[in-house]
């Protein structure tokens, strides 16, 4: 009699079992979480019955409040209530401080990075975002009745490497397994494309609270191919509010505002903006410290205020069309994403530029989360009716600093990711064993006009005569749009070691320290978490190699097969125990033993993938 295998609850899931996955839209103003249930992607509601959670975090002396309750306290406690933290992600203190007049809390310099001084001490944007992510994940696991296997988090397509890395760090801090960082416009196109079976070229115009993206995609038989993307990672509906605040200040004659007053002005500005989407003329009341201010504003007044900002977005649309090599007539549909696309002037300007009526059938506030949920469901390995393929691009060129403060581009913007490009360097002096490489992101030719991403120090270069060492440095951008760098000296094959110093990011050690000291993990044993991570990875390796053996054992000699099986048996045994280091070592051993096998299978599968064609070529 065969024994039935029964997994312990929450332990290893059988391959066919539905895994819990969620898509998270971590927005500037609001955040949402969605999932696919019974084949349909839907946003999830928290206990209070809301699916749209304000991206607001309030720190009190002994607590952290996220969402509506925190937003309600914004005027009361501006210094400890962090709004629009997304605008601070991956940014330097000096970059942000330039327009700090609109930020109603106290920014501090955390070794070059921007951070916020709160009652609980200094909090950086990664920590604040982690609180929002943890809250959303909590909603998801409570609604779905289990721990999430993985999440897809959306980011503006125009986010650079530091901003993406900061988002991923926040997820790590919140204890989430990130399946993919997905570009917001791509997520929206996915939600629309699958919904309507749309084919052809579409533009996605995404104007959120703090970011603007414009992407051009070609949709064809389940393939979502981003042709070009552009935008501004510091332009959004918030700027409409700020324009209104300045206008209100003119009306009241209050040229300087306290943090609390600024917060009140912002609240009123947002109400005015929202109301003017539905009405042409508005009477409003602005509460002041001593009484109130009554005023009137028309939609055309408002339009005049935001006209320069809207024009800026249309200029970006022009550029992205040029990059895609298309004319406006070739755009069949325009998908509108983000709450700010409710503003009538935005809609009419976009409709006029693309000469097409914008699509708004899916709620522009929810479409990104829905697209992310669809992709999360696919990535986690759940069966899906759709065989989709997303081909995304890198939004900004990657380059290196060369002599004279110039930037040499190595990966131009709109290159399809993942991408790897190698560049060769040589030594300048006899016996030189180290080298510094400065990586930048941006389109301009001067180092100062681009964004510094990181400085890499190559060491352990074998000592040779000047110009003798040839160091091949490979820059790889993965499907999340994140850069990694490897280096090798060509003649000796020696790998040079690399120390990365991110210009606007946290090092791996800093993230690890944050995780350990985080309140989020106060209750959870850190060691247990690390053990569990290794056990999950061991399970993945076991599954993958066993499946490979079942499919392609004939690629191995009897001897090789035996050593693979031994490695698997050992890994399976070690996995049962609680020795994290031993599990890690067994995984590495198994990987080492099966490297050659994996490479052979890769070659075979490339040939198989094109087999249909081979026949008609012969």
């Amino acid at each position, binding site marked *: 009699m065969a024994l039935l295998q029964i997994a312990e609850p929450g332990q290893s899931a059988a391959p066919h079992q539905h895994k819990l996955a969620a898509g998270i839209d971590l927005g500037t103003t609001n955040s949402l979480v969605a999932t696919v249930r019974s084949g349909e992607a839907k946003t999830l509601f928290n206990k209070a019955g809301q699916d749209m959670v304000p991206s607001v975090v309030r720190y009190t002396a002994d607590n952290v409040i996220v969402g509506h309750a925190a937003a309600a306290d914004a005027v009361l406690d501006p210094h400890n209530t962090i709004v629009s933290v997304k605008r601070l992600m991956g940014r330097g203190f000096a970059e942000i401080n330039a327009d700090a007049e609109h930020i109603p809390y106290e920014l501090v310099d955390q070794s070059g990075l921007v951070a916020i001084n709160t009652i609980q001490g200094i909090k950086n944007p990664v920590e604040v975002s982690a609180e929002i992510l943890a809250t959303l994940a909590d909603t998801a696991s409570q609604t779905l009745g289990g721990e999430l296997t*993985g999440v897809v988090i959306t980011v503006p397509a125009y986010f650079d490497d530091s901003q993406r890395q900061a988002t991923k760090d926040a997820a790590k801090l919140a204890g989430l397994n990130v*399946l*993919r960082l997905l570009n917001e416009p791509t997520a929206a196109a996915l939600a629309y494309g699958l919904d309507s079976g749309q084919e052809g070229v579409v533009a996605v115009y995404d104007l959120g609270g703090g970011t603007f993206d414009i992407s051009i995609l070609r949709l064809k038989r389940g*393939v979502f191919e981003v042709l070009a993307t552009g935008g501004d990672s510091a332009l959004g509906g918030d700027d409409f509010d700020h324009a209104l605040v300045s206008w209100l200040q003119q009306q009241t004659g209050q040229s300087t505002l306290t943090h609390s007053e600024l917060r009140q002005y912002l609240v009123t500005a947002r109400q005015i903006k929202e109301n003017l989407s539905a009405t042409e003329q508005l009477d409003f009341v602005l509460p002041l410290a001593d009484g109130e201010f009554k005023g009137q504003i028309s939609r055309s007044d408002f339009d005049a205020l935001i006209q320069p900002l809207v024009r800026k977005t249309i200029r970006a649309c022009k550029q992205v069309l*040029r990059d895609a090599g298309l004319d406006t007539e070739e755009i069949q549909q325009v998908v509108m994403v983000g709450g700010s696309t409710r503003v009538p002037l935005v809609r009419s300007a976009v409709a006029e530029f693309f000469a097409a009526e914008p699509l708004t059938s899916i709620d522009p506030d929810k479409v990104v989360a829905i697209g992310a949920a669809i*992709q999360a469901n*696919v*990535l*986690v*390995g759940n069966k899906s009716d759709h*065989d989709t*393929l*997303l*081909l995304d691009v890198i939004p900004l060129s990657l380059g290196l600093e060369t002599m004279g403060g110039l930037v040499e581009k190595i990966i131009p913007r709109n*290159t*399809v*990711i*993942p*991408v*790897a*490009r190698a560049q060769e360097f040589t030594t300048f002096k006899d016996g030189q064993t180290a080298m510094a490489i400065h990586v930048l992101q941006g389109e301009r030719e001067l180092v100062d006009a681009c964004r510094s991403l990181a400085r890499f120090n190559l060491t352990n270069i074998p000592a040779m005569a000047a110009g003798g060492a040839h160091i091949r440095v490979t820059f*790889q951008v*993965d*499907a999340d749009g994140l850069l990694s760098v490897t280096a090798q000296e060509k003649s000796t094959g020696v790998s040079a070691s690399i120390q990365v110093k991110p210009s606007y990011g946290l090092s791996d050690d800093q993230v690890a320290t944050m995780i350990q000291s985080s309140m989020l993990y106060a209750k959870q044993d850190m060691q247990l978490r690390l053990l569990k991570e290794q056990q999950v*990875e061991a399970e*993945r*390796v076991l599954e*993958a190699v066993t499946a490979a053996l079942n499919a392609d054992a004939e690629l191995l000699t009897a001897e090789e097969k035996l050593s693979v099986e031994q490695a698997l048996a050992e890994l399976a045994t070690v996995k049962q125990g609680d020795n994290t280091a031993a599990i890690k070592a067994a*995984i590495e051993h198994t*990987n080492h033993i099966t*490297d050659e096998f*994996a490479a052979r299978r*890769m070659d075979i*599968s*490339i040939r198989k*993938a*094109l087999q249909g*064609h*081979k026949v008609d*070529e012969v």
Partner: protein
Amino acid sequence: MNYFQLFHLPAQFELDLTELGTRYLELQRQFHPDKHAAGSERDKLMAVQQAANINDAYHSLKQPLLRAEHLLALRGLKISNEQRSFMEPAFLMQQMELRELLAEISDAADPDALIDEADQQIQQQKKALLRQLQSALDANNPEHDHQAADIIRKLKFFFKLQHELELIEQTQD
């Protein structure tokens, strides 16, 4: 890596771009990291590298200049990035004239007319050179391969001019 082999296409300059596109998508459907997101760390890393290779191969075959360079590299002829110091005087003269034309655009009374004229000249030369490149590569012998390399060097000048013209055009509106 032989990019033609990767896509199971004949190693020649003339290429069916639609077919290339179809095969590219077939490979990406299998190797894109999204298809391996639930896999082990090693599998994920391999998928990223493989997908990057496929993207690179596609990019190189899609563009005629890169395709020709790849074809020559497969035949053992590597074109160095440095310009060869020697170029035919007639060619250099023609380049200078075109550069002068480009320089005149910004001050011209009717810039659009000059842009059109420059564009037409560049396209014409490019087309002629691409035809020559095709027959040199089709001959498939060392002597013609060297000729092909020279044509590629010339074409690079024209692609650069075209790019500069596009930049000038953008500043016009």
